[in-house]
């Protein structure tokens, strides 16, 4: 009785194994990915400006060539899924742009949410015939450290995290610089004659949790606000700890409301999904807010004056383009800050319409000051 | 003497059931049963629990299909394959357990399955109107918009009846309708039922309450042990006659037994009380004792507290008062395992619920209760080979045909399962054997075998407590008999003195039962 299900399963397993070994005997094991509608005629364009390499040297910009470059084969491993309207979709836009503008053959693999499946999937991707493999997020360094050394002739690009591997080029984002601009905007708005400012020299920031990566934003923001007016007071609050801190709009709204009633004219949110609560509070209290990551200006036009953006798409495209022109250097970290459009404020029609000219000018000056190293933005990581 | 169809050849029967046989695994529920229902009568169907009356009516309502027999409705032979067929034929049934949806309203329940639609939507107003009409037509008061969970049991029953009437039935079967009602509610129900009869409805009343039958029926059909006993006019019979028909006057199975040689008291119950599953008192102070070398029988119509008493004695149910002594040791709080260790064995009344685990092997079934003891186990380890030998030994000694230790016990017939249980319970030579309904659903040959074993065991000096709904069995085996009615032992007889009539009356709580010893 009890042995039967086992026998059945054994037979099924053997059957599979038999078919499996038969399959392996067939040549041409790994299927090659079909290219996504490549358009080789599109000319490569030059990156806006070359990114800074952390060792101090400046990466050579892509040389504008009129002819189509050698066809690059690019794969991006998404440890999660597309469709987040933020980080991954932005990265995807970058590789798609490499396809249309550089004629690169692009393959995007969604790895899903099974953490333990990421490593074998990345390994398999590395075995396939791609020139560059793009990997992102701070969840991946361990896996990249394990996979990359086994494929010394392959290049990896790791964005928004860093590893020390000779065949990996890292991209990191100077969110403190972007936040500095947000701080400049906030400080200027607080001192401006916009109808809904409190009149106090006070601005606020609501962070997800009290950790280095969030504090990198907070520190830059504070510095920016006080760059406008050294007397500017910056109120800080954190939603909580762990993943729930980024998904608790009610708590964030409470914190922002408290900051508004303490005199803050504008609050910057650095709290992911909780941030919508900050925008809500600003609407209710008739004050202002600054969004983060993606462009949230449209969430509440006239209330959300701008958003601090992380341009994953630009950075990813840049590095692919460097590879296309042979200038990509692995074993380095490319820092994306203000001067190479890696971070910045969302300057769209809402920004144009609602931000006083004086503040727009201040923000532009701040950009130049950072680019010219007149201002050194502090980091939350130290 | 069979009384059947003495009257009313002029009134055409609406339902005729003939030769109905239905067998469930191990149990014959109906054997060649028959039933006639005339138009415009209240026909009581009586019998002890397990007599097969509910099964017979469930066959008529299409819930079971008979193995053999014919059903004629309105003059033509029909096959009733489902309740829907029955309803189409104008037959409805109100079950003992109501089939209503508590969160829906009365009107919604009544129209369930035949919802009126307005466009694609359920027409609630029409449903309420429909319920109201039915309610006035038949004189059953209900509030159509009340939710079922908010109304009383009596009202729920009226909803069930309306549900059937709303489907246009002309024959209404009620299974133990008064079991859940207060006396006042019951009176009201009968008032309603007579009103329905005046409108030409025919009603089947399944019950075992004889007073109810005498006051509220035109005719009575009696069943016993799955078989038809007879049909009588209510006006021409008496409670005593019905009781005799119900309890049975079969030739008693003669068991050769000598006089008991009672020894020391083995089991002593003192004012034991316990509650049933609903928390209502089921045993209301029972005292008796069983001595070594005697069989003490407990007789009674089922449902008078015997099951609960047995469970209390064997440790499956908590007592709420009184004490139980086994060989002088208080055991009323002891676990079932402790009671076994003190020398108690138990043949439970339902072999499939308590007595065996159908999907488990015969070996697994043969060792329970002793599975942790040498020789069947050593410390934590089962002695698997010894276990198999043990099972084989029981199989041989009790002549359980076709049994292999590794086969599931469910592959055996009911009688053979019962044999294995008996074998298991006797195998450790307990000082007290509690045997409940030991021969229910067992064929004649096996019954004799069981009886012989019990007598042998008594003569070997064991105390035996026998509980049986089969009066003949108690009479044949017991040296002393206690009769349970309504949670009490209302009479006690010496085995050889008791007559069936006296026992029967005591069992039904009617007449002045002679109280022998307390």
């Amino acid at each position, binding site marked *: 009785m*009890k042995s*039967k*299900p*086992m*026998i*059945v*399963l054994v037979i*099924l*397993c053997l059957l*599979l*194994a038999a*078919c*499996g070994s038969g399959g*392996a005997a067939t040549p041409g*094991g790994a*299927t090659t*990915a*079909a290219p996504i509608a490549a358009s080789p005629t599109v000319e490569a364009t030059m990156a806006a400006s070359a990114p800074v390499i952390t060792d101090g040297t400046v990466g050579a910009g892509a040389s504008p060539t009129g002819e189509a470059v050698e066809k690059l084969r690019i794969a991006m491993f998404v440890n999660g*899924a597309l469709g987040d309207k933020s980080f991954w979709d932005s990265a995807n836009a970058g590789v798609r742009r490499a396809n249309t503008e550089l004629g690169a053959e692009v393959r995007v*693999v*969604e*790895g899903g*949410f*099974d*953490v*333990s*499946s990421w490593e*074998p*999937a990345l390994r*398999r991707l590395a075995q396939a015939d791609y020139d560059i493999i793009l990997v992102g997020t*701070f*969840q991946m360094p361990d896996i990249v450290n394990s996979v990359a050394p*086994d494929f010394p002739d392959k290049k990896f690009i790791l964005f928004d995290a860093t590893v020390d591997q000779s065949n990996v080029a890292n991209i990191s984002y100077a969110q403190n610089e972007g936040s500095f601009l947000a701080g400049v905007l906030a400080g200027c708005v607080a001192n401006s004659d916009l109808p809904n400012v409190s009149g106090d020299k006070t601005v606020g920031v609501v962070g997800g949790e009290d*950790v*280095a990566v969030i504090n990198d934003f907070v520190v830059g923001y504070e510095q920016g606000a006080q760059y406008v007016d050294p007397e500017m007071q910056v109120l800080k609050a954190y939603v909580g700890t*762990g*993943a*729930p801190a980024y998904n608790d709009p009610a708590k964030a709204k409470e914190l922002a409301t408290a900051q508004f009633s303490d005199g803050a004219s504008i609050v910057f949110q650095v709290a992911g999904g909780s941030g919508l609560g900050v925008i809500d509070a600003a609407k209710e209290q008739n004050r202002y807010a600054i969004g983060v990551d993606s462009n949230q200006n449209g969430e509440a036009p006239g209330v959300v004056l701008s958003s601090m953006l992380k341009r994953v798409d630009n950075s990813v495209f840049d590095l692919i383009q460097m590879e296309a022109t042979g200038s990509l250097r692995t074993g380095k970290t490319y820092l994306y800050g203000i001067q190479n459009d890696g971070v910045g404020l969302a300057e769209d029609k809402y920004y144009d319409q609602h931000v006083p000219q004086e503040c727009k000018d201040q923000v532009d000056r701040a950009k130049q000051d950072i680019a010219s190293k007149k201002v050194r933005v502090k980091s939350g990581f130290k | 003497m069979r009384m059947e169809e003495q009257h009313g050849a002029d009134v055409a029967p609406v339902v005729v059931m003939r030769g109905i046989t239905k067998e*469930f695994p*191990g149990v014959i529920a109906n054997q060649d049963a028959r039933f006639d229902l005339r138009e415009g009568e209240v026909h009581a169907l009586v019998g002890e629990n397990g007599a097969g009356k509910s099964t017979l009516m469930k066959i008529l309502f299409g819930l079971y299909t008979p193995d053999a027999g014919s059903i004629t409705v309105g003059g033509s032979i029909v096959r009733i394959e489902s309740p829907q067929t029955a309803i189409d034929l104008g037959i409805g049934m109100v079950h003992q357990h109501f089939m209503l949806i508590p969160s829906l309203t009365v009107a919604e329940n009544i129209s369930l399955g035949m919802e009126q639609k307005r466009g694609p939507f359920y027409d609630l107003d029409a449903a309420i109107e429909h319920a109201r009409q039915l309610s006035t037509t038949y004189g059953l008061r209900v509030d159509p918009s009340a939710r079922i969970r908010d109304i009383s049991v009596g009202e729920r029953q009226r909803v069930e009846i309306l549900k059937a009437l709303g489907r246009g039935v002309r024959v209404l079967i009620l299974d133990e309708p008064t079991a859940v009602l207060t006396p006042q509610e019951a009176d009201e129900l009968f008032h309603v039922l007579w009103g329905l009869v005046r409108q030409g409805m025919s009603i089947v009343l399944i019950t075992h309450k004889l007073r109810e039958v005498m006051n509220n029926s035109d005719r009575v059909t009696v069943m016993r042990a799955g078989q038809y006993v007879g049909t009588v006019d209510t006006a021409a019979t008496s409670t005593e006659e019905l009781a005799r028909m119900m309890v049975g006057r079969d030739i008693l199975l003669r068991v050769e037994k000598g006089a008991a040689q009672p020894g020391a008291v083995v089991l002593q119950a003192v004012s034991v009380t316990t509650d049933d599953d609903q928390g209502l008192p089921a045993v209301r102070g029972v005292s008796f004792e069983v001595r070594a070398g005697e069989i003490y029988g407990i007789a009674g119509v089922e449902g008078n507290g015997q099951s609960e008493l047995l469970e209390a004695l064997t440790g499956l149910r908590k007592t709420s008062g009184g004490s139980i002594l086994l060989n002088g040791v208080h055991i009323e709080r002891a*676990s*079932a*395992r*402790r009671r076994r260790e003190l020398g108690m064995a*138990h043949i*439970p009344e339902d072999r*499939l619920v*308590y007595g*065996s*685990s159908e*999907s*488990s092997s015969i070996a*697994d079934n043969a060792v*329970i*209760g002793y*599975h*942790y003891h040498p020789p069947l186990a050593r410390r*934590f380890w*089962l002695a698997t080979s010894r276990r198999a030998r043990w099972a084989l030994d029981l199989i041989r000694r009790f002549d359980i045909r076709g049994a292999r230790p590794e086969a599931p016990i*469910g592959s055996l017939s009911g009688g053979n399962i019962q044999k294995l249980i008996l074998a298991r319970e006797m195998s450790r030579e307990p000082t007290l054997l509690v045997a409940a309904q030991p021969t229910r659903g067992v064929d004649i040959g096996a019954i004799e075998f069981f009886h012989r074993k019990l007598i042998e065991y008594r003569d070997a000096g064991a105390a035996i407590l026998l509980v049986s709904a089969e009066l003949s069995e108690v009479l044949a085996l017991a040296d002393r008999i206690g009769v349970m009615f309504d949670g009490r032992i209302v009479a006690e007889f010496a085995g050889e003195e008791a007559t069936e009539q006296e026992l029967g009356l005591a069992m039904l709580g009617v007449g002045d039962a002679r109280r022998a010893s307390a």
Partner: protein
Amino acid sequence: MRQRGLVAEVIPPVLSLVAALALSGLIIAALGSSPLPVYKALLLSPFESLATFSEVLVRMVPLLLSGLAVAVAFRCGVFNLGVEGQLYLGAFAAAWVGFALVGPGIVLIPAALLFGALVGAVYAFLPGVLRAYSGASEIVTTIMLNYVAINLTTYLVTGPFRAPNAATADSEPIAATAHLARFLPESRAHVGLFIALSLAVGLYILLYQTTIGYELRMTGANPRFAEYGGISVRRTVLIAMLLSGVLAGLLGAIEVLGVQYRFRSGFSPGYGFDGITVALLARVEPLAIPFAAFLFAVLRAGASIAAVDTEVSREVVDVLQAIIILFVTAEGLWSFVRRRHVVAAGQRG
């Protein structure tokens, strides 16, 4: 009892598999791709090399342990749907031993495994007690406790036990001495597999060769019969939940020591629930569970390969995988339900 021939036993699952493949083939074709490469990636690629095959072995370990954890409770008539939560706590406990203590592997590994098992057991004990003494449905309590465990461990690694400077909600890495040995060259296959396999044999022995196992089986088969036979159903239910929790805790511990090397919040893709399917596929027989887990692991590894090798989107691969599992399991589920049904009918009878 009628004995069905072996052929008759094998045919239904094979037919299920064929039907599942046919249906998923239709879906792929409807989406405009060719089903053959997908079949190949999903079912055959896991066997194409030692490297891919070893991934199957890696994935098999948690599925096997989860299947055992679910099965031991099932056999006692208890539904432990809290394996997921228990494995998270077990994983954290083991990781804690790994990063907070130092010592040679011979001390650290057993300590981490035992601590993981202990914590898993304690966490399963809770719903066990609620079920045994207050009758609270363990189905509800175990599911609710999953959330508590998952969020608690996330809190622990975002708060008190967060690795310094870590960007993610991860603990510090465990000591290298606490890593489970890997037994195939250049692969992640680790000796946790042998631990899991011996636990399957151990569970078999426990169920069929010991008095506790007997009491557990009888309680599951018919609790009233068990009670009648002097078995304390409460005690047995508690033991079953404890054993289930031990296995779940070990699952978490072995994943940490063998694959993750640290506690990562959210590392389990629902192993605790996969265990239910694995156990049912194996008809709740301990010795069949490794094979069921293997089949499952092949599909999981294959899905991962299909996502890389084929153009069919990840969601479609997930759907295919689900269809195959559903079809193959439905057959096993059906027999399980049938058996239950017979028992239930007997109890009513």
